[in-house]
């Protein structure tokens, strides 16, 4: 590549410095990333579409295609939204614009963010930059793969049950799912409203903190948002002295965790102790026994309702029909892929008269217990740690036919999502030459603690996270 910078290694923070010192212009930087995309994205398919003109005074950003962008087609990875061009910006897109960031493009996602591999995209899968035969994780595989492949300095994803953290783990970068309510959902194509949360993906913890600072804070257009209780701090400390790290016994007991992942995780705990942390065991029995089934009642129930608006009447795709009913049925039949259909059916069933108490109602009660169990753990610990994903990236097609195997990808990320808590993926080593991610969970509004812990570990581990095969 002939570019002025090496996008494979350039952090957002460094890029911001270059622009600030006028060593590179926003337009040049934007163009450099477009060149990288032109060179590598035919293979990887991180982007559903790119934006040629740099509109901004700062560095570029990639946005997951569930984020509404005024004047730029937004499909959420679904054919039912083909051709839909929002007339308004999501609040997070607006805040990025206000910060001078230029929109580089919209990244691929599992349809309506439903999936853990980005194979459910209505527009074809994204491939893992470490090995194109493998999945990048999901649903935010497009953003995660783009950051690791040097196709964006940073990006935004959305996380319902692990869609930021898990792809970051599988692609080897840093991803934050913020505390529920700290980032506006206005303009985010909804999957499960009580769980959806937008968050940053970048190469370093400091980059993630910088981007979180841009997007976080109360939005009058989203009633569920709150003001941050404290400003976002950029981490500098390289020690973990006095940090109490809790490891949920029930998480480690899961057989699904691959031996190679387990070994890397145990090594990083040892490293944390060396840096001064106190590592102990904690108990989250209900969260790990019932978290996944509880999630797969609540999320589909909300999804079944959120996806009702795709009827072909006002926007997006419309199939022909001789009656209103036939038009709606055919639009939804032809427009939705298998996974949204599966979840609409699950959710409709869970909310039906006579089943509500046993399914949705019961799941909400379990959710309350999950919240309490986590709160109790944070009385003794500052952060909790688990592997982010039970396995490293797996081959495309491996789990596509087995929904339950796919759902199990999120075994470790889901409990804290149900509890509304922040979670940070930090790369912590390799297994079979593929990245392994560490999941750090914080208490409500504990982002600054996560950044401090993540940053210290990141510095200590000093991993080379450029996919070898992409090195020129």
């Amino acid at each position, binding site marked *: 590549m002939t570019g002025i910078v090496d996008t494979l290694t350039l952090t957002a923070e460094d890029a911001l410095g270059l622009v600030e010192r006028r060593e590179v212009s926003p337009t040049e930087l934007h163009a450099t990333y477009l060149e990288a995309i032109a060179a590598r994205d035919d293979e990887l398919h991180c982007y559903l579409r790119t934006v040629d003109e740099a509109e901004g005074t700062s560095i570029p950003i990639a946005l997951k295609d*569930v*984020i*509404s962008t005024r004047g730029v087609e*937004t499909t*959420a990875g679904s054919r039912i*939204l083909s051709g*839909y061009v*929002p*007339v*308004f910006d*999501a609040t997070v897109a607006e805040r990025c614009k206000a910060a001078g960031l230029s929109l580089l493009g919209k990244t691929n996602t599992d349809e309506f963010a439903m999936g853990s591999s980005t194979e459910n995209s209505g527009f074809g899968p994204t491939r893992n930059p470490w090995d194109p035969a493998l999945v990048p994780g999901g649903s935010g595989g497009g953003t995660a793969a783009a950051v690791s492949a040097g196709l964006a300095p940073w990006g935004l994803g959305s996380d319902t049950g692990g869609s930021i953290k898990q792809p970051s783990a599988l692609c080897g970068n840093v991803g934050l799912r913020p505390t529920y309510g700290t980032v506006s*959902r*206005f*303009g*985010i*194509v*909804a999957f*499960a*409203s*009580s769980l959806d949360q937008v968050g940053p993906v970048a190469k370093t913890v400091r980059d993630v903190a910088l981007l979180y600072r841009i997007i976080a804070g109360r939005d*009058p*257009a*989203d*009633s*569920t948002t709150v003001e941050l209780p404290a400003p976002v701090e950029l981490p500098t400390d390289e020690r973990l002295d006095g940090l109490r790290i809790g490891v949920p016994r029930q998480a480690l007991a899961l057989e699904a965790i691959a031996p190679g992942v387990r070994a890397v995780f145990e090594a990083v705990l040892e490293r944390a102790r060396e840096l001064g942390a106190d590592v102990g065991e904690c108990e989250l029995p209900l969260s790990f026994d019932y978290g996944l089934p509880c999630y797969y009642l609540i999320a589909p*129930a*909300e999804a*079944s*309702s959120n*996806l*009702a*608006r795709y*009827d072909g*009447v*006002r*926007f997006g795709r419309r199939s022909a029909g001789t*009656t*209103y*009913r036939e038009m*709606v049925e055919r639009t939804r039949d032809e427009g939705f892929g298998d996974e949204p259909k599966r979840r609409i059916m699950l959710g*409709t069933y869970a*909310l*039906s*008269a006579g089943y*509500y108490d046993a399914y*949705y109602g019961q799941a909400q009660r379990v959710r309350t217990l999950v919240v309490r169990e986590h709160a109790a753990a944070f009385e003794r610990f500052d952060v909790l740690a688990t592997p982010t994903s039970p396995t490293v990236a797996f081959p495309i097609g491996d789990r596509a036919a087995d929904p339950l195997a796919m759902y199990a990808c999120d075994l470790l990320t889901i409990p804290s999502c149900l509890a509304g808590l922040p979670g940070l993926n930090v790369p912590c080593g390799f297994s079979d030459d593929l990245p392994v991610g560490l999941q750090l969970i914080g208490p409500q509004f504990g982002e600054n603690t996560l950044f401090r812990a993540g940053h210290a570990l990141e510095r200590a581990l000093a991993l080379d996270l450029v996919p070898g095969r992409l090195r020129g």
Partner: protein
Amino acid sequence: MTWEPVIGLEIHVQLKTRTKMFCRCPVGFGARENTQTCPVCLGFPGALPVPNRTAIEWVVKLGLALGCEVASRAVFARKNYFYPDLPKGYQISQYDLPSCINGKVIVPLPDGEHEVGIVRAHLEEDAAKNVHVGGRTGRIGGADYTLVDYNRGGTPLVEIVTAPDIHSAEEAKRFLQLLRQTIVELGVSDAEMEKGTLRVDANVSVRPDGSDELRTRCEIKNMNSFTHIARGIDAEIDRQIAVWESGGEVEQHTYDFDVATGTLTSRRAKEEADDYRYFPEPDLVPVEPPADLVERLRAELPELPAERIRRVGTALDHERALVLVTGGLDGLWEATVAQGAEPVAASNVVANQLVGAGVDSAAVDPAELAKLVAARDRIPRKAFDEAIAMVGDPGFSAAPYLELETVSDAAALEPIVDAILAANPAQVEQYRGGKDGLLGFFVGQVMKETRGQADARAVNELVRAKLEA
């Protein structure tokens, strides 16, 4: 066997807030179709609702006026169903935790006061307006095509549900008159049925007198005036009694009231079973009105129509009190009485003549009106009517009218009567031949000749005496 009707009402009131329930689009009539819309009320992907604070205060205010308990925590819920007037595929409403519960309204009836329980009053958003074009059914099933105007979509609605405490069409009508007046006086809605800002569905069943069972009920929709509601309910009561008495069984059903024929037509069975899959709206936080807000709203409540009917009813009677209060006329009546007018006479003038003349009661000076009421039997009828028609005009003075005396003196009237009889010999002949009805003709002629100043009763007697002499 005699039967007792059991009636419950479901009332939807469109609030006249400046903006919609969950977005900032203006609320109002008459705008061009689909110009008062935005991504939120059109249900675009990612758009989120933000509740209207005024609407939340107003449902509390209305609930308090209906004697309800105000929930310290109300929860919005999604009611899920597919229809083109519902852009999100769900309506945001309240379900198991509504804003107001357990109220009651005292309805004055000729045989005393009757209590109607208010089960709940909750807040929700209105649907858009469908216009089904072509076909004969007036429904989407048979239409050639359907147009949707989303201007109305998202307008704040309060749904009020009564207990099945109403036992006649007349009682339903009185309850609604009282409710409507309460809503209007609170200033939260125009509550006009013709405009659709007040909509009423009635649930009707009947049971043998003295029984306390609840038999199968039917719902009547689409009634656009209180009179139609009463007719619709009566028609349904008769229908159900006939079914039971012929040995049949009433089946649960929904009917439309056909205004033109005054009959009930069966509504096509719903296309789906009623499973709305309610669940708490995750895009909104619970509504928790602070106690001091509720107390402030309670303190701000004006004296309500039901209380005023009771108070006015002690000076008049319940019937007159009901008419005055539900017509919004009791204020003027009271002020007129305070100026010395006799209460019943003042009530008759205010409730009948003033309304009949189309006078705006708010513009009337009660002191001038009191003078007219006092002079009503003394001054010529025509002069009185003229005065009433103008009593609302700016700067109106009763004085010139009060000087006009009715001509009842026989000496003054006699020559005129004689002249009229002389001018109409044929009619005189016919009257004397037995055509009594012609009396009115002669009286009318005399009144015309005296330009209404003659005392009609005196003329009557004089004419009769002359003809029968």
